[in-house]
């Protein structure tokens, strides 16, 4: 095994497949007679479809079917809906081809099926619809002025101590922070291949982060038995939260595949990635904060406004970080959400916290400067030793260590703290910091294990992997727990026929699945020990019945702790016992957090260079120090944080979803106009892990890390820009126009 920074790691177990192009994503399954689905979409924003002309499309060469709301197959899931007329709009939801209502621009109004992709694409362009248009609003500013925010339990005001206590503080700031819509835009365009084996049975290859819930939703919609829906997701080309829902295009593909009775493939377009598979909602946040002259927080008031679709109540924990990150006695938060005539948002990497921390961590910096205290010093002065929101102790918290590690690495104290004081030629230099917090948790999952007669191990769980390297981490864990070389372990995943795994997301996969893997490996050890308990080789004068605790498990052998020369291979144990194999299944028994609060933490340090005349911002250096508990695989863990930081660079400097509010249409729904960070935008990114185990969450001591790596990063950039220029930018992305 290789060593990197004294941590063991293995290379990705699926690396060869990924570099040779043999890793299969959802649009890459071949069936004889494959047909192609292409969506036609509305070009109005709100209203009803009054007429459709599908004839030219139906008559176009190669076309097998056109499905619209007019000939939508009867779906059990559509038939059994509660009376829609009695529901508030926000509760109605949206089901593709269910009715003639247009709820957002670009909504699918038809799916065209043809024998080739080109023919389906051409035919879809022939679909015509007439609409009765209605007035609409896609602008959050307009909604805030004249609209009505959603009501209900999700929008209750939170007050701890005294509301608006900041007003009476010696030092105070008030500021408003804005961020636009951001879009996940994984490189793999969402795609699905469906293969109905009969009217009641199908296999689908779907881009999903959650096999079980996808299976449930297809089951309900089509009235099928669970065992008759097999979902296969071997590889996901990135998702970042965009692949939890069973989106309209997937439902359309399922309907169409059933109707034509042929295997069908549908890959939406990059344009459609902007409004058919969710996005991070736009948000406007007002922070009002006060501290005593000696730098103790007196009060935080965080008022957040965000948006959702008219038909879907999407909420996220934007204000949560303000309640729990610092030791502040008086905190009050409000969260308002306005429905707009846009498609629905969804979770995106670090949902809620990423948005909230941009405001909170920018405001902390403003307050630190106002109080004339070093921003890191200021955070240490307000360090929370217990969770004041939940009133529980932390399972583990090494945030202090993060501040220390990161500050040392970037030489924080060597900078001149005075804004606009550092220069290199035409470039103004600045350093900034921002912290991130994200819930750590553990869910329920099952893992099956088979130890084969040759001593190799097969683990199996119905989890999917969008990139962090779940199979790699699980292989490594099993290797360490069971004493097997990684190459003798195979981790099977991505199939609903396997024991049900967890969803992949929310930074809980390793914690959840790892617990089940750990447990199943322990059970195998017990079973092996049981099989050799009577073997005289292991008997000593004192020990006449060997127990698992008397044994070591290394390199495929079990041996006596006291005398390693007495050993037997797992293969021989199985053979001697006359067994075919050892097969076991174990669970992760869900959340162990009744008495604790658990979070992962990250502290980002950024060095920026701002061009004094053009306002161009370059990220010159990033150091991110992370408390994610014990690290399972240093290499893939580093990659996850690097990836999150790259996402953060995009978020701070370039990503901005733009809607033309006159038409309710997307303006920049492609990669030429919606900029994400490219190679030239990204400097060296240094990742430091505290790497201390969490004693409560799971047997590995790990916490999550997929999300926390982006939380607080945008604030670090804006704070660095302030340090470089003396100009406080409160609206991301920080494009050059905002600096000149």
């Amino acid at each position: 095994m290789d060593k990197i920074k004294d941590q063991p790691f293995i290379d990705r177990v699926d690396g060869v497949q990924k570099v040779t192009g043999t890793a299969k994503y959802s649009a890459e399954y071949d069936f004889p007679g494959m047909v192609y689905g292409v969506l036609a979409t509305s070009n109005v924003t709100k209203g009803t479809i009054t007429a459709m002309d599908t004839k030219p499309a139906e008559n176009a060469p190669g076309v097998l079917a056109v499905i619209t709301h007019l000939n939508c197959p009867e779906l059990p899931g559509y038939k059994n809906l509660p009376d829609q007329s009695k529901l508030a709009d926000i509760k109605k939801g949206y089901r593709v081809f269910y009715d003639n209502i247009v709820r957002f621009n670009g909504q699918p109004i038809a799916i065209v099926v043809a024998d080739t992709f080109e023919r389906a694409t051409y035919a879809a362009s022939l679909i015509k619809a007439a609409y009765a248009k209605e007035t609409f609003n896609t602008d959050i500013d307009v909604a805030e002025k004249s609209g009505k925010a959603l009501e209900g339990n999700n929008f209750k005001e939170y007050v701890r101590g005294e509301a608006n206590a900041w007003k009476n503080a010696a030092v105070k700031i008030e500021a408003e922070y804005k961020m636009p819509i951001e879009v996940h835009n994984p490189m793999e365009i969402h795609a699905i291949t469906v293969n109905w084996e009969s009217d009641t049975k199908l296999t689908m290859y779907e881009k999903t982060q959650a096999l079980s819930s996808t299976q449930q939703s297809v089951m309900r919609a089509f009235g099928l038995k669970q065992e008759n829906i097999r979902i296969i997701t071997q590889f996901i080309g990135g998702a970042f939260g965009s692949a939890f829902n069973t989106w309209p295009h997937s439902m359309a593909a399922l309907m169409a595949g059933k109707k034509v009775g042929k295997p069908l493939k549908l890959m939406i377009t990059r344009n459609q990635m902007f409004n058919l598979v969710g996005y991070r909602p736009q948000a406007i946040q007002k922070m009002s904060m006060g501290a005593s002259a000696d730098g103790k927080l007196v009060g935080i008031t965080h008022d957040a406004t965000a948006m959702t679709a008219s038909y879907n109540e999407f909420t996220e924990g934007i204000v949560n970080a303000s309640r729990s990150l610092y030791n502040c006695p008086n905190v009050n938060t409000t969260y308002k959400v306005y429905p707009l005539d846009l498609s629905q948002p969804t979770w995106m990497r670090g949902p809620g916290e990423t948005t909230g921390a941009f405001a909170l961590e920018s405001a902390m910096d403003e307050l630190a400067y106002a109080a004339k205290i070093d921003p890191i010093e200021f955070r240490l002065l307000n360090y929370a030793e217990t969770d004041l929101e939940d009133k529980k102790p932390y399972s583990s918290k090494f945030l202090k260590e993060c501040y220390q590690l990161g500050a040392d690495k970037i030489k924080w104290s060597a900078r001149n703290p005075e804004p606009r004081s550092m220069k290199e030629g035409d470039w103004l230099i600045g350093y900034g910091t921002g912290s991130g917090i994200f819930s750590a948790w553990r869910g329920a999952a099952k893992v099956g294990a088979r130890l084969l007669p040759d001593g190799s191990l097969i683990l199996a769980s119905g989890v999917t992997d969008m990139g962090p390297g779940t199979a790699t981490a699980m292989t490594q864990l099993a290797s360490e727990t069971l004493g097997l070389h990684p190459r003798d372990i195979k981790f099977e995943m991505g199939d609903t026929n396997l024991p049900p795994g967890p969803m992949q997301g929310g930074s809980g996969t390793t914690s959840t699945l790892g617990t089940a893997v750990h447990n199943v490996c322990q059970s195998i050890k017990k079973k092996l020990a049981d099989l050799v308990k009577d073997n005289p080789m292991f008997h000593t004068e004192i020990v006449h019945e060997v127990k698992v605790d008397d044994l070591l498990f290394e390199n495929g052998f079990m041996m006596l702790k006291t005398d390693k020369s007495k050993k037997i291979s797992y293969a021989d144990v199985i053979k001697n016992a006359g067994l075919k194999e050892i097969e076991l299944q174990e669970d992760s028994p869900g959340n162990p957090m009744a008495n604790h609060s658990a979070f992962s933490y990250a502290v980002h340090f950024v060095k920026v260079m701002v061009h004094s005349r053009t306002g161009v911002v370059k990220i010159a250096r990033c150091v991110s120090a992370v408390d994610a508990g014990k690290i399972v695989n240093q290499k893939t863990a580093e990659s996850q944080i690097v990836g999150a930081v790259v996402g953060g660079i995009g978020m701070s400097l370039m990503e901005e979803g733009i809607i033309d509010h006159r038409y309710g249409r997307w303006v920049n729904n492609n990669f030429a106009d919606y900029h994400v960070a490219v190679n030239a935008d990204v400097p060296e990114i240094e990742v430091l892990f505290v790497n201390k185990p969490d004693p409560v969450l799971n047997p590995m001591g790990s916490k999550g890390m997929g999300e926390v790596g982006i939380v607080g990063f945008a604030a670090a950039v804006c704070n660095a820009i302030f340090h470089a220029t003396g100009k406080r930018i409160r609206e991301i992305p920080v494009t050059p126009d905002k600096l000149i």
Partner: protein
Amino acid sequence: MDNNCKNEGRRDFLKKSTALAALAVASPALVKAGENDEKIAALFEKIPLNIEVNGKAFSLSVEPRTTLLDFIREQLHLFGTKKGCDYGQCGACTVHVDGERINSCLSLAVMNEGKKITTIEGLANGEELHPMQKAFIKHDGFQCGYCTPGQIMSAVACINEGHANSRDEVREFMSGNICRCGAYPNIVDAIMQTKKEGSTHD
């Protein structure tokens, strides 16, 4: 287009006219509704293409509107080349045409008559991975792996072009390949190592 192509076109048209005449005399009873249209469309829509992909010669016919990317994926079933945008904005579809990197979504299959295409499937030498592929694994130059075939094809060409003389140059000349997982620093590491070890064969 050169003269050669024009001549081809005329010959094709003649061939098609003959076939159309044959269709026209087929007994309507024998031909299902629409099938005529279908056959006529197919005749007009497809033109022959000779192309070499990963050392294998193919002689088949394609619709002129089929992109090289869709041809490779849907007709040759080589799914290693990815579609990330279909508009030439992401680099996921990068392949080599006569040794040079291009976005295959921006090229029509028929524009590649007589050309040699290399896709990610053609990079390794049997079981032996190309040094760039090995370096990507070693430096963890990917997460989800979806941009990876395009990155690797681009990376090999980047060195061959002489555009890998410094980390900054690599960053610049690899910026046509988006990696949303953000593996960029590791990708640069992989390219610098491959360049250093002097292996640039295609």
